[in-house]
Structure formats: structure tokens, C-alpha cells
């Protein structure tokens, strides 16, 4: 668990980060969102002491971050940055093994961990382990960057715009992969992004920052249903909030029993979001859709139920 209290940083008299308090539970992903210069990256970089805080306290699993040397602290925290920063003169395997080697793991254990991570990120070890970063696509490089950060099983990951430099398709795919890996491995992470959609997609809680302060910290749904007046309301964007709320829910939550039958032309899977289901219903101008698993209808979903989730007052 990470507990931050009174975290403050001033640059030349100007306060960049102003007395922040927040906690991140084990297995939770917290997103720090805000416009450029709101202090979110500075906050992140104080957590692994790339920037030393002026005031405040950072506790990681009950231990004060100032008690350990910065290098030792950083080896226990995974760090992913926008530019990836893979070492171009090292192979993929050497890159991923960086921190385990610093921690003096024996060679066999490092190799086993590298192969396990490559497998987790869908990169065939026999094909990719000995390649150099320049031989990889942007998406593959970013996967290796995340794998490298996770290599030594750190207590948490710090991610600064991790998917920011990728095209929308690759970014979406990596976001899905990250969510899938989280479900299998349980990742504790603090994610900095200016992309509200990315925050909604990846985070359990979102902290909206402006001018060095956290204005509101809440779950995505509560942020959408009850944003504070002013900056939060403007930044979260209320135009399509009903649709955004729908994208936070899955079809399986609203499934009603239905008779077994072969799959019709239009259907949804239990893991699809309500937003996808809604879009299909609008397109078909229908009021219910079949839920299909393995080619057979297993349930159905009603438009009225979906509209109720997207309406004010639910939560």
C-alpha cells in the first residue's frame, strides 16, 4: 500500500505540487489526470525520488521512502515512461533483465523471468529475446518497456503517459492487454495521463489535478455522476457521460435468462461493455439483444435495463 501525506514541491518559489494526500491499495490502479503543468508528472517522479519532495511523507508498504537510498528505492518500483527508453545497445532479454541483474538474481532465474514476461506480453521468447529494440515496432517496444518495469516484481508501477506515443489502434490494444494482465497478476500502479478515456479504461480511481492540487479523487463512475463544479466538470466532460458510464459496465451484469438457440446475426458477448451493446441496439432499432457464448445464445439483454444504468440517479 502507498500512503502519501502532505506532499509538496516548489520550483523557484512557485508551488508545483501543493500538499497532496492520497492512498493506493494493493492491486489498485490510480490515475492522476490533468492538463500539462498541473503537477501530475512531478508527483509521480517524487514517488521514486527522481525529484526530492520539499515537504511531506511517502510510505510504501509502511516504510518511509526516505529511509532507503534512492537507487534501492527505484529498484523496488517499476517505472514506465512515454519515450519507453529501452537501452538501444542491449537485447530485449537484457533490457527486461536490467533490475533483476542489479538485484543480483542468478542467471537462470533472470532468464526464466524474462521468458515468463515475454510470454505474458505475447512476444515469442525464441523470436524476440535476442532482438535489439530498433528491430521492434512501437507497440512491441512499449510492451517490452512495461515488461522491464515489472521484471523484479516491484511493489508498484509508476507509469507516465505509458501509451501516449502510440497510434490509437495500438494504444487500445495495449490498454486491453494491460487490463488483462492486471486481472491475472494483480498490479498496483499509479498512472499519469492527460487522456480521460485512458484513465476511465485503466484506473480504479481517478485523481483530477489542477495547479498542483487534487480537486477530486473518486471512482470513474462517481466522477462521472458527481463531478465537482468548475475544472473537474470541464475536464471530465459531461457531453457523453451516459455513454461513458455504460462503458464502465459489462453485459454480464444485466443478462436475463433466455432459451438456448443458435447465434442470430446481431449479438453481444458477456464481456462486452454496455456501451457496445447500446450502440448495437441503436443501430438495430431493437429493444433486446441476444448474449452469445461459444456460438450459442445463453442470455439476453434489454434496452430498458441499459438505459436505466446510463440514467442519472443510478450508482
Amino acid at each position: 500500500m502507498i500512503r502519501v501525506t502532505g506532499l509538496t514541491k516548489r520550483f523557484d518559489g512557485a508551488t508545483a505540487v501543493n500538499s497532496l494526500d492520497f492512498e493506493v491499495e494493493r492491486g489498485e490502479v490510480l490515475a492522476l489526470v490533468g492538463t500539462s503543468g498541473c503537477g501530475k508528472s512531478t508527483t509521480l517522479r517524487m514517488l521514486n525520488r527522481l525529484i526530492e519532495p520539499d515537504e511531506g511523507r511517502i510510505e510504501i508498504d509502511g516504510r518511509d521512502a526516505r529511509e532507503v537510498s534512492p537507487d534501492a528505492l527505484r529498484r523496488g518500483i517499476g517505472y514506465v515512461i512515454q519515450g519507453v527508453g529501452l537501452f538501444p545497445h542491449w537485447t530485449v532479454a537484457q533490457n527486461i533483465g536490467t533490475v533483476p541483474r542489479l538485484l543480483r538474481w542468478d542467471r537462470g532465474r533472470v532468464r526464466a523471468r524474462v521468458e515468463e514476461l515475454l510470454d505474458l506480453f505475447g512476444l515469442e521468447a525464441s523470436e524476440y529475446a535476442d532482438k535489439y529494440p530498433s528491430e521492434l515496432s512501437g507497440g512491441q517496444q512499449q510492451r517490452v518497456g512495461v515488461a522491464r518495469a515489472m521484471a523484479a516484481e516491484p511493489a508498484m508501477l509508476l507509469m507516465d503517459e505509458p501509451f501516449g506515443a502510440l497510434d490509437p489502434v495500438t494504444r487500445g490494444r495495449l490498454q486491453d492487454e494491460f487490463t488483462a494482465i492486471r486481472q491475472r497478476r494483480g498490479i498496483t500502479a499509479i498512472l499519469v495521463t492527460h487522456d480521460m478515456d485512458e484513465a476511465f479504461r485503466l484506473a480504479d480511481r481517478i485523481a483530477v489535478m489542477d495547479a498542483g492540487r487534487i480537486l477530486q479523487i473518486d471512482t470513474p463512475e462517481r466522477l462521472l455522476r458527481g463531478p465537482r463544479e468548475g475544472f473537474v466538470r470541464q475536464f471530465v466532460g459531461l457531453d457523453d457521460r451516459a455513454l461513458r458510464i455504460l462503458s464502465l459496465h459489462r453485459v454480464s451484469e444485466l443478462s436475463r435468462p433466455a432459451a438456448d438457440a443458435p447465434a442470430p446475426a446481431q449479438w453481444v458477448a458477456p464481456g462486452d461493455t454496455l456501451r457496445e451493446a447500446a450502440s448495437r441496439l441503436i443501430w438495430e432499432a431493437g429493444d433486446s439483444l441476444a448474449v452469445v457464448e461459444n456460438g450459442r445464445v445463453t442470455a439476453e439483454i434489454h434496452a430498458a435495463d441499459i438505459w436505466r444504468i446510463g440514467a442519472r440517479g443510478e450508482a
Partner: protein
Amino acid sequence: MSRGALALLVALALFAALVLWPGLMTPLLRLVAEPGQALLYDRQPIRVLVAWHLALVGAAGVVASVVGMTLGVLVTRPRGAEFMTLARMASNLGQTFPPIAVLAVAVPLLGFGFEPTFLALCAYGLLPVFENTVAGLRGVPAPVREAARGMGLACSARLWRVELPLAAPVILTGLRLSTVVNIGTATIGSTVGAVGLGEVIIAGLQSGNTAFVLQGALLVALMAICADLALRGLERRMSRAG
């Protein structure tokens, strides 16, 4: 074999042949010689001159590289940044001050021969190594540096395992420029009695013997070409590894 390696082999073979059997040059030298003049320099065996020439350039190259690289690393550290201007001035001075002037100043202090020439070459060879070390280290991409720091690589590990290997091809270019320039510049050492290939050229100039000048100049040029090709090959190998 690559074209570079082939060129190096040919240049080296030619150079070795002309050093071991200077007589091979006589047909060429005869074209420029006055009738009755000696064609081949024979006051010292050519291989002795070549050995001293190499020793002089090599020793100065080692000193210039060690000093240039150390300075370059120091001024790119956060704590050494304030010495940047000073170091740049010092290494610029070494380059702008003509080596012949260095010799004139150094001879009264160090005497004639190897030492003043060595000093002049050290000063002259410093700038390319220093500037390229700085450029190479600054050229390490910011995300790479940030990632190295964020993963907990200690200062020294960042320098030795990340920054220097990535800067190596650029630093090596500086080393090559410094060496090639110094192979030519070393000839002026013969004006103050340093043993080297300059001796052949100076002897030719003093006695109006164009054949000597041509013989000395050809050997120096070939030596410079060999060094250039060899170091270029090394650079290519290094940037391929990167």
C-alpha cells in the same frame, strides 16, 4: 570481407612493402629527382623512422584520449557543468595554438627531440576527443537516461554501462580525427630533432631533393590512410553492436 576491410588490407600491404623495401619507390622518385641526386633517404633505416613516428603519435594519442575523455565525462556530470566553459577554452586553445609555436615554447623548457613534439601533439589532439566525448554523451536520448535513473542504476553504472557504450561511436570518431591529424602534424617534430618520418621531408627540403620530400610525404600519407581505415572499421563495428 567488407569493402572497408579490403581497402585497409591493401593500404597496409602497400605501406609495409614500402617500409621494408624502400627500393620499390625508385621508379616513381626518379620522375621528380634532379640528375645525380640520391633517390632514397639512407641516413636512417625507414622502419626505424616509422617506429618512432608511430610511438610519438600513439603516446600522444593515449594522453589526448585519456585527458579528453575524462574532461568530457566530467563536464557532462551535473556537478562538473560549471567547468564546461573552462574545459572548452583549454581544449580550443590546444587546437588554435599552432603546434610549431608550441614547439618554440617547449624546446627551451624540455630540450630538443621527442618531449616537445609529444607535448605539441597532445595539445593538438585533445580538442576532437573532448568535443566528441561531450557530443556523444549529450546525444544519449533523454528517455534512455531517465529510464536508467528510474530503474535504480547507480551513477557509475549509468556512465559505464549505458552512456559511454552509446556514445562510443561518436567518441571513436573524435579519436580517429585526432590520430589522423597528428600523424601529419608529427612531421614538424623533426625540426626540433624528434626522430620520425618528418626527417625525410626536412632533409629533402634542406638539400633541395624533391625525391626525399616525395618519399617522406608518401609514407606519412599512407600511414594516415591506414589509421583512418582501421579506426573507421572499428567505428562501424561499434555502431552495429548498438
